[in-house]
């Protein structure tokens, strides 16, 4: 079983559209995981039907029992996150500010503060229109995306792939360089970067590559919208060569990605598009690379 994680650093490069395309091409051989839990969009293309759902709890937040509180203000004094407010005459915790460190609970002289587990979202297992299982999640608004929900999604995907004897896990990774993407990357066999030849595209690719390098995961790259800027495309190709990142393919700037999306489809469902052939080739190449 091989786990492929598709990431981009920068948003809007076509990462999710390409991941969904691979999911279509892999069909029953793969389990799909949507780890972009902050902006989970893959379901809009893969039309999953839910088989299973589960609440997910992670982290804690402080709650002050008003009957016990003696208004000493010690909790407010020590809280480094300005999470405790007494402008109403009562000491109250703002959930949006509370980091869940629990320090206040240790200093409260009357034990009025309890740390309550937080429901941060839901985790789902579904069946997609490509006849594969997909694990995805919905993060609650303003919840702490500490990477734990991402880890949960990956864990479920792995369990499902193992149980059903699947060959691949295809993961739509998280953006940025923080905890969610670190969780997306852990345990991956191969990373596919999706980038675009723009000043920000190359900048973000370089940053996220530094992270992947730390994990020592082999990687390849798809340059999307490659003809938008020939010069930056060449710079990216040079960066790939210098860092032993496999240059998987170039795709043209083409609005048919959006046209397909508007119909709720992946681009590979349009058999007449020249891009479809390129992506199919890319998936074949990826499978060969993964075998090595």
């Amino acid at each position: 079983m091989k786990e492929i994680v598709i990431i981009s650093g920068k948003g809007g490069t076509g990462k999710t559209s390409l991941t969904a395309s691979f999911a279509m091409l892999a069909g029953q051989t793969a389990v799909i995981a949507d780890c972009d839990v902050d902006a989970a969009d893959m379901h809009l293309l893969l039309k999953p039907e839910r088989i299973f759902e589960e609440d997910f709890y992670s982290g804690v937040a402080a709650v002050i029992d008003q009957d016990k509180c003696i208004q000493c203000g010690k909790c407010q004094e020590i809280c480094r996150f300005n999470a405790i407010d007494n402008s109403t005459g009562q000491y109250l915790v703002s959930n949006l500010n509370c980091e869940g460190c629990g320090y206040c609970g240790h200093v409260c002289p009357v034990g009025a503060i309890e740390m309550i587990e937080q429901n941060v979202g839901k985790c789902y297992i579904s069946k997609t229109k490509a006849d594969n299982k997909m694990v995805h999640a919905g993060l609650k608004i303003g919840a702490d995306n500490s990477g734990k929900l991402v880890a949960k999604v990956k864990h479920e995907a792995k369990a499902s792939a193992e149980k059903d004897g699947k060959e691949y896990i295809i993961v739509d990774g998280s953006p940025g360089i923080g905890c969610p993407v670190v969780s997306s990357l852990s345990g991956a066999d191969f990373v596919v970067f999706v980038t675009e030849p723009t000043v920000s595209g190359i900048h973000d690719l370089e940053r996220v590559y530094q992270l992947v390098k730390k994990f020592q995961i082999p990687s390849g790259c798809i340059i999307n919208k490659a003809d938008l800027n020939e010069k930056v495309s060449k710079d990216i190709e040079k960066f790939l060569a210098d860092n032993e990142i496999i240059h998987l393919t170039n795709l043209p700037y083409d609005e048919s990605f959006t046209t397909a999306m508007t119909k709720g489809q992946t681009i590979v469902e349009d058999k007449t598009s020249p891009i479809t052939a390129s992506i199919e080739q890319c998936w074949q190449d990826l499978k060969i690379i993964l075998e090595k």
Partner: protein
Amino acid sequence: MTTSIVCLIERLKMKIAIASGKGGTGKTTVATNLAKYLSENRKVVLVDLDVEEPNSGLFLNGSLMNQKEMFKKIPNWESENCTLCGKCQSVCNFNAIMKLGENIMVFPELCHSCYACSELCPTQSLPMIPMKMGMLTEYKVEQLGFVGSKLDIGQEQAVPLIAQTLDYVDEMYSDDYLKLYDAPPGTSCPVIEATKDADFIFLVTEPTPFGLHDMKLAVETMRELKKPMAVIINRYGIGDAEVEAYCKVEGIDIIANFPNQRYIAELYSQGKLIYPHVPEFKAELLKAADYCKHLVKEN
């Protein structure tokens, strides 16, 4: 006399965060073009709070005013008086400090700088010391002030760097500056941190199913924070009309529709501002700028 001066300052005070549910919708394009354009006639500072992937600076060439290493505080174990009681480990909710044999180990990237271990340690063996988490840079781009921070690779928490960057801006730029924030994408803690002290939110979206889906999440987030907001559509003309229909139902103003043009994408790819080169873009930018002026007055 004094009160009227206070009133005047109060009135100018305005912070607008430019956010989007989904990355890559053109948030940075809107932020940089709007800030630069507005700065031709008034005091403006643009703050790049997308510290994981800061890009605004790539589109603005200015002169470097300041560069500052940014630190977070982490506990540092001093072994002399430590009795290995393990209190620190038991109070840390993030597994950032652990007793391993005869040693206390700190895992800096997991630490949330809450001070619990340090201040609850019975022998004061864990003073908090600074650790570098990123870099802040400040530029002057003609009239425009620009401040941006970049998180070091390997640092996992964006929130403390966002908070400190905002503190820096509040200290250095008086209230007669219009403050524009380029917020990180998404709906989780970094966005909350970057928008919670803003007076108004511009949500940038694309007229596509992904754009709409992620914008709805962003709208809910901003409603939770009780922030007034308006929408800017980028790449207008591509996709469908669902975003407009949604905004109409929800009663959210659409203040500008930036056109979908390959030429705009090319200018963006080169790191150029758009409005000096594309009149149709500039016409929409003027609408957004007018909206800002009207907000400042209303405020």
